């Protein structure tokens, strides 16, 4: 079942190429829905256990996949948000066949990243998700997309090739027979070599988190992408750095993680605050959301690097659910752009004519700035709680971010949706048909997991405990 879940979207994406144009939306939606259904079925069955066969035996590369705990949570959120993306793309994009195919192809890469339990397999899926993201930007991007493309690809590859070298190093220096995670854990690398290898691995993950100073691709990527926000949503789902550090980083480099803890926590807290500060100055909604997302990712990183159980649980929780509301916000911005033809944050008065759009956007913004009652609060609060026990001052600095977040979020919302509608502005139609679902469903999820976090915590908590238990005592 797990293999179906991973590769069904790719199959769907290839089938889309030969599907008659008029049925493409339905077929894409069908495949996304079945994938989500398979995910839910795996969840009901209590996760998918490790499945491992040799892929390239002579090189020790295995095809090892499992979906449990954190992976399953993230995979479910990915499948859910992909369905939402397809729902919106079908309505918004004219002749959306290519985009739908790319979205589905990317979903396979993302699910594979979460399922992989072999480092080379992880790398392969990690790069697989890159190609559709690049193509979406190339086909649907705006005037200056070439710069954004080059930045995005160069940063990603810079990180991942260094990661490839350290992957080779882990097996070669540790003497593990295969690249499967279980074997690598059993044959650890020790001493200073571990720190160097961790730095190589970390570069890739820091690019994809993203973490200051490797974040510069992010705002351009979002700004130059298609107005609908669908590629931005997929890009948000692609921020898998936090997961990579959790699954492979902490497990394979326990000593280095502890050694570098204060530095990395400092970087993470700085990223969170710095991004929030910059977000305040943005006048383009996409750039604003990009920096807001970066700020969340600073939180995720802070929790992870602190190696404190509460904080790590919180950061996995935040990582999973920020996809929901940040992604939905990108789509909301897409709807705004469709109505007023601009992504500027200083339009004014949209609320008067499109009350539902304004209301739902505001609710999603509240989720994003971690107002209690939304999923974001559970995550951010646990992170700060846990990080405080490790490095109180760094946690304090990061805590300032929550104030900054309220400032950038509310000021942008105010200048766009409130204030007067400029004279002569076109009439703004309110939400209709599937747009209600596109914004409503993610909001419902964010709300549900804000007040009733048990289902997600039951998945995340044991997984985090297992990983941290290997560290010894923390």
């Amino acid at each position, binding site marked *: 079942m797990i293999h179906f879940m991973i590769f069904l979207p790719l199959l769907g994406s290839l089938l889309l190429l030969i599907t008659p144009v008029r049925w493409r939306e339905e077929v894409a939606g069908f495949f996304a829905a079945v994938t989500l259904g398979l995910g839910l079925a795996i969840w009901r069955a209590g996760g998918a256990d490790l499945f491992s066969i040799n*892929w*390239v*035996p*002579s*090189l020790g590369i295995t095809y090892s996949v499992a979906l449990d705990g954190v992976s399953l949570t993230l995979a479910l959120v990915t499948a859910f948000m992909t369905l939402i993306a397809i729902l919106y793309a079908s309505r918004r994009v004219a002749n959306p066949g290519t985009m739908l195919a790319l979205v589905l192809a990317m979903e396979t890469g993302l699910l594979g990243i979460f399922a992989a339990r072999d480092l*080379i397999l992880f*790398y*392969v899926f990690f*790069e*697989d998700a*890159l*190609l559709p993201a*690049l*193509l979406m*930007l*190339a*086909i649907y*991007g705006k005037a200056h*997309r*070439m710069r954004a*493309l*080059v930045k995005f*690809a*160069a940063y990603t*590859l*810079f990180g991942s*090739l*260094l990661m*490839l*070298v350290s992957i*080779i*190093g882990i097996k*070669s220096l540790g003497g593990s027979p295969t690249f499967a995670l279980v074997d690598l854990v059993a044959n650890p690398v020790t001493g200073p070599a571990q720190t160097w290898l961790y730095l190589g691995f970390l570069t890739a993950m820091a690019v994809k988190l993203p973490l200051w100073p490797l974040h510069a691709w992010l705002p351009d990527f979002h700004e130059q992408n298609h107005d609908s926000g669908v590629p931005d949503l997929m890009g948000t789902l692609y921020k898998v750095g936090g997961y990579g550090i959790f699954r492979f980083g902490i497990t394979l480099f326990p000593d280095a993680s502890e050694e570098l803890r204060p530095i990395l926590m400092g970087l993470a807290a700085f990223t969170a605050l710095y991004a929030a500060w910059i977000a305040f100055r943005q006048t383009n909604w996409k750039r604003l959301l990009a920096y807001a997302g970066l700020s969340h990712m600073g939180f995720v990183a802070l929790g992870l690097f602190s190696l404190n159980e509460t904080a790590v649980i919180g950061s996995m929780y935040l990582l999973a659910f920020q996809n929901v509301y940040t992604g939905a916000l990108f789509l909301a911005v897409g709807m705004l752009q469709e109505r007023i033809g601009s992504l500027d944050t200083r339009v004014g008065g949209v609320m008067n004519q499109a009350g539902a759009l304004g209301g739902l956007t505001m609710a999603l913004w509240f989720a994003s700035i971690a107002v209690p009652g939304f999923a974001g609060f559970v995550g951010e609060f646990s992170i700060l709680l846990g990080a405080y026990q490790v490095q109180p001052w760094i946690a304090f600095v990061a805590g300032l971010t929550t104030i900054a977040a309220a400032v950038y979020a509310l000021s942008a919302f105010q200048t766009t949706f409130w204030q007067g509608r400029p004279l002569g502005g076109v009439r703004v139609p309110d939400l209709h048909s599937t747009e209600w679902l596109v914004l409503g469903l993610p909001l419902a999820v964010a709300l549900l997991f804000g007040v009733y976090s048990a289902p997600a915590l039951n998945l995340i908590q044991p997984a985090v405990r297992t990983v941290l238990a290997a560290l010894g005592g923390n």
Partner: protein
Amino acid sequence: MLQIPDVALAPMLPILIVLAGAIASTVLGFNLPRRALTIINLVMLVLSGVSMMTLWNSGATAFGGGLQADNAAILLGLTILVGSIMTLLVSLDTAYRARVSFPEFDAMLMYAITGTLLIAFSGDLIVMLIGLEIMSLSGYVLATLQASRRAEESGLKYFLLGAVGSAILIYGIAFVYGATGSLSYAGIAAKASGLTPANVGILVGGALLLLAGFAFKVALAPFHQWTPDVYSGAPTSVSLFLSTVVKVAAFAGMLRVFGGALADAPGWASVLQILTAATLIIGNTAALLQRNFKRMLAYSAVAHTGFLAMCLLGTPQAGGAALGYYLLVYTLMTAAALAVVAALQRDELGMEIDDLRGLYYRHPAYAVALAVCLASLAGLPPFAGFFGKYLAFQAAFQNGYVWISVLAALTSVAALIYYLRPGMLMFMPDRTPAREYPNGQRTPTNFAVVLGVLGVTVLGILPNIWYGWVQNPAIWQFLAGR
């Protein structure tokens, strides 16, 4: 099935079949049209491949080890044949447009292939040198064959620098012979470890001269300067041949000499790592600056020389396997990319990178194929180029050249950028008139492109199909022969 009359003939058969094709092209050229000859030659190449496969695991030798058809030779020989077949297929469509459609083209090509196979099958330095010279001389003619100033310039450059390279190589052979008193790889390998200090100096000098000579042939910096001019000046089907088959053969020679004969000799590895590093840096950064797509591919061939040379830095067992895999993948992806260029170019200058804008909306299949090749050249999974790169990194890393693998990782980022630009431009909508040759899509070229793209994809998803054959360390342990 051919009846093999003599035991010693069996290991020569693959080469003789190709030679027969060359002679047939020379003689029958008076009576038959070129297309017929090309088809005969394609059949010959396939037959040669079949006869190679019958030699698998036989370890047959001829002339007292001067020619050895061991598994390494067969694997490299098959790679050479794949590249040659793709060249012939492309030339079926484009030779006429390039004004090189006469029998001599085929004859020269087949002579060159004979030489390349001789290098792969060589068991001593003289056989290797003869093969190298046959290959190079035919290569000079091929590069000059088109009646145009650019082709003449390219051919003359190739000849002058290639002749210098050969001279240095021969000088190196003389030194090695002087130090060890042997010309056969096995003899050199046996004597290399127990030499008097005076002879060690001569051996190191000989090894370095050999390295410089080979560096000319495979285009290792700083001996690469002829490459971009020759590849971009020659007709595209010839560039395809030079950048795949000839390079594979030159690497086969290097593997034989440095992985086999001189495996235990001191000195050359530390120089090779510097050449590799220089090639990685120069090839990749120079490719970044190119505006012409064909010329960019020429620089990318230089850059790939750097990645391929990393395999030689590994132990012969790991490095040979990596090289065996990478060379086939490199041949497939480079040949397919150049085949698309050959089909779509208006003239032999190739295309400007900007001309590729919107290609996906005019020639969707070629655009996707080219994108796959570029992704594979950039080393993105799930295409085979990724595993090639991975194996090269691993070979160098495991033998202690960590800094080379880190440098290769960093220069790969530059590589990604120059592959990404054309790759992405093709998918950007465009309203200007098409700038490519409208009638380029022909069956033989399509066949070559499909072969390359399918190969790259299948070998990327299931690398074991080819790597399973090349991975056996025993193949690469006795490169010098026993």
